[in-house]
C-alpha cells in the first residue's frame, strides 16, 4: 500500500514535468500555429549546459540561471531564423516545410552536442543528498516533492500571466486571431517571440528537473522526454493547457505504476498506448477549447 502511494507521488512528479514540456509546445503552437519539433532540445540544452558550466567551476545556482538563459536564446534563434520567415501576411510557403525544418534543427542540435560530449550519460550535480521523509508508514522521496512544488508554482505563475496580465491577454488574442490582435495595436512578432522564449525556459526547467531526478543527462534526452511531452499535448487536446496538465499527470502516474508492477521495458508502450486509447475513445483529446479552425 505504502509502495503504491510512493509510486503515485513519484508518478505525479514525473507527470507534472511532462506537462511542463507539453505546455511549451501548446504555447508555441497556440501563437504560431506551427508545431516546433526543435523545442524538444530545450529539455536537453539546459541540463547539459549546466553540467558544462559547473565543470568550469561556475556555482550551481548561477549555472542554473545561465543554462536557462541559453535555452531561451536557443528558442528565440530557432524562431527568428527558421519559423518567422514563414509567418505573416503575404508570405507563401509550402506548409509542410517549416515543420520538417524543425526536425532538421532538432537533429542538428542533438548530434552537434552529442559529437562534442559523447553519447555517454553525464552526471548531473544534485545539490545535497536528502534523507527520505517519513509520514506514518510512507517514505517519500524529497526530490519528488520539490519537483511537484516547482511544477505547481510554475503552473500557477503561468495561469496568472495568461489570465490576469495584459501580456496574457495579448497572447490569447494572437492565438485566436493575429490579424484582429494586430489591429488592436498588439505587436504580434513581439508577443510570439516572448512566448517562444518563455516556452523554451519552461522546457529548460523541465529538463533540469528530469536530470535532477535521474542524476544524469545525455545529449539525446531531448527527443526521449520531448516525445512524451508531445503525446501529452495531443492527449490533452492540443490547444488546451489544462488538458496538457491533466494528461501529463495521467501519463506520469500510469508509467510509474506500470514500471513498478509490470516491467520497465514497457514504458514506451504506455505512452503510445495512452495516445492510442485516446484516439479511439475520445479523439478530440481530454479537454477541448474552442479555438482556431486550423487545429486538430
Amino acid at each position: 500500500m505504502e509502495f503504491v502511494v510512493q509510486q503515485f507521488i513519484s508518478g505525479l512528479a514525473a507527470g507534472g514535468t511532462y506537462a511542463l514540456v507539453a505546455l511549451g509546445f501548446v504555447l508555441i503552437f497556440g501563437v504560431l500555429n506551427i508545431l516546433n519539433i526543435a523545442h524538444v532540445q530545450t529539455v536537453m540544452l539546459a541540463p547539459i549546459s549546466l553540467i558544462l558550466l559547473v565543470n568550469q567551476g561556475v556555482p550551481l545556482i548561477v549555472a542554473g540561471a545561465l543554462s536557462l538563459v541559453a535555452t531561451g536564446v536557443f528558442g528565440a534563434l530557432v524562431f527568428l531564423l527558421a519559423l518567422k520567415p514563414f509567418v505573416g501576411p503575404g508570405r507563401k510557403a509550402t506548409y509542410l516545410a517549416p515543420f520538417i525544418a524543425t526536425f532538421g534543427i532538432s537533429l542538428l542540435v542533438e548530434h552537434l552536442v552529442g559529437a562534442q560530449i559523447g553519447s555517454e550519460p553525464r552526471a548531473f550535480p544534485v545539490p545535497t543528498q536528502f534523507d527520505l521523509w517519513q509520514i506514518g508508514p510512507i517514505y517519500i522521496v524529497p526530490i519528488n516533492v520539490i519537483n511537484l512544488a516547482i511544477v505547481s508554482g510554475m503552473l500557477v505563475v503561468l495561469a496568472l500571466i495568461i489570465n490576469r496580465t495584459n501580456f496574457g491577454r495579448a497572447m490569447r488574442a494572437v492565438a485566436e486571431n493575429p490579424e484582429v490582435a494586430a489591429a488592436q495595436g498588439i505587436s504580434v512578432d513581439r508577443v510570439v517571440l516572448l512566448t517562444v522564449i518563455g516556452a523554451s525556459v519552461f522546457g529548460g526547467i523541465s529538463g533540469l528537473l528530469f536530470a535532477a531526478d535521474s542524476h544524469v543527462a545525455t545529449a539525446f534526452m531531448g527527443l526521449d522526454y520531448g516525445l512524451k511531452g508531445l503525446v501529452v499535448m495531443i492527449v490533452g487536446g492540443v490547444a488546451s493547457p489544462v488538458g496538457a496538465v491533466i494528461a501529463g499527470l495521467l501519463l506520469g502516474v500510469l508509467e510509474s505504476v506500470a514500471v513498478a508492477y509490470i516491467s520497465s521495458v514497457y514504458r514506451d508502450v504506455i505512452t503510445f498506448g495512452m495516445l492510442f486509447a485516446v484516439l479511439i475513445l475520445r479523439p478530440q483529446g481530454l479537454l477541448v477549447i474552442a479555438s482556431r479552425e486550423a487545429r486538430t
Partner: protein
Amino acid sequence: MMDILPSILTPVLVNCIAVVGLYVIAASGRISAGHAAFFGIGGYASGLTSIHLAVPPLLSVALGMVVAALVGAAFALIADRLSHWFFAVATLAFAVMVLSLVSTVDALGGATGLYGIPIAVGLGEVAGALILAVGFAIWLDSTDFGRTMRAVRDSEPAARALAINPTYVRCIAYALGTGLAGAAGGLWSHYLGLIKPGDMSLDRSLLYLIYLSIGGIEHWIGALLGTFLLDLLPEFIRFSRGYRFALFGGLLALVMVLRPSGIVGRAEVDKVKVAWTKLRRFGLTRRSSA
C-alpha cells in the same frame, strides 16, 4: 572497385524503395517520421516466414510487404483525425513503441536480432524490385486515385466537396507507402540474412525523411535523387557518425527554408515535360514535311 560496388549500391537501392514509399505517403499530405518501423516490420515478418514456415524467399518478401501494409492501414485509420503535424508525432511515437517491443521479445531475437534468414537476394533482385517500385509510383500518379490523393493533400474541404472520403484515401496511401517500406525491409533481411532492431531505428526513419525532403517531396525522382545523393555521400566523405547526422539535419533545415519543395520540384519536372513534348512535336513535323 567493381567487387565492392554491389555492397555499396545495394543498401542504397533498398533505401530507395523505402523512400519511394515515403513519397507515396507524402503525396496524400502526410509526413511519416517513423517510416523505418515498417521497414523493420516487413523485414521481421518476411524473415520469420522464411525461417519458420520455409516459404520461398520472394514470397516471404511479398508477405512482409503485406504485413507492413496491413499494420500501416490500421495505424493510419486510428490516427487519421490528427492533422499532419500531430500525425507525424504519432508515427514517431508508434515507431518508438515498435522498436522497444521488438527489442525485448525473445522470439524475435531480442536486442541482437533475428538470424538465420536464408540469403537469397542480391543487387540484381533489389534493382529489379526498385524498378517495379518506381514503375508502381509512376503508374499510381497517373491514375484517378493518384489525382485524388493530391486533391486530399492540397485541400481537404475541396476534396470532401467532391465526394471524396479523405480518411479512405489517406489510409490506402499510407498502406501503399508502408507496404513499400516493408518490401524494402524484406529484401534487406534476405540480403544480409539477418534483421535487427537497429535496422528500424529512429535515425533510419529520420534519414528517410531527410532524403525525401531534400531530394524533392513532390516527385518520385526526388525520392531517388535524395537517397542516392545523401546515402552515398558518406562513402566519399568519411564522417564520424555524429557529425553526419548533424550535417544532414542542418542541411535539411537549410533546404526547407531556402527551397521548401526540395531539389526536384513539380515546376522543374513540368518544364522538362514541356520541353520533351516540344522536342517530339518538332521531330514529328520535321519528318512529315520531309
